[in-house]
């Protein structure tokens, strides 16, 4: 599974301005639900924040991959967000987070979920990929880098 299978330009956001982890997840949830009527923003937010309570998805190097399983989700859906200013995310390396890839996964999609996590880890684990996203001029450029 590739990033291009789950991400669209409409779900790529450059320079979101949020001050906290909670507000950031709230904004992204609302914004995804606005574009995809099958999702309820509040439900997405509650699921994402519930997952964070089990352990931060800030996986280091300024990257977070907030994710959750949802009954209303029929196919794996991704959203890529760059923050204007890095925020505290309780990340495992204690570094602030400025790049997020939000992942909404169907309830039963276990193998698919592992595959897409591996794909994201393969891309976001590379310093060059992260730098390109940080230096991208706009959402369009970020999207092109992400799906390349």
């Amino acid at each position: 599974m590739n990033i291009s299978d789950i991400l669209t330009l409409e779900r790529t956001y450059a320079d979101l301005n949020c001050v906290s982890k909670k507000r950031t997840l709230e904004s992204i949830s609302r914004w995804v639900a606005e574009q995809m009527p099958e999702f309820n923003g509040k439900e997405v937010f509650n699921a994402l924040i519930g997952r964070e309570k089990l352990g931060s998805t800030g996986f280091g190097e300024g990257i977070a991959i907030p994710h959750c399983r949802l009954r209303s989700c029929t196919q794996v859906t991704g959203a890529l967000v760059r923050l204007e200013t890095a925020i505290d995310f309780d990340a495992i390396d204690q570094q602030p987070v400025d790049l997020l890839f939000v992942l909404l996964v169907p309830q039963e999609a276990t193998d698919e979920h592992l595959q897409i996590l591996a794909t994201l880890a393969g891309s976001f684990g590379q310093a060059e990929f992260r730098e390109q996203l940080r230096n991208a001029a706009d959402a369009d450029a970020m999207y092109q880098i992400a799906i390349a």
Partner: protein
Amino acid sequence: MIHEQITIINKLGLHARAAAKLVGVTAKHSCQIQIGKEGKMVDAKSIMSVMLLAASQGTILDLKVTGEGAQQAFDDVSHLVGNYFDEGE
């Protein structure tokens, strides 16, 4: 050096939270710990690297531990994996 195989038995496999728990255990040890399959070994102290394995339920992984305290590190990792990453299934 210890080189053994361990089987992922929890239902959800080595997903993000399980990978984080694994790294939580490996990071406590100063020895070198590698995990992988089919000859592709990664640093078991890096969550991004561990997630690369996409190890689902039933996957047999190689675990290589080298250095001081290797036996304790090996035991801690196999206990976590054998205990379903404390997920209960």
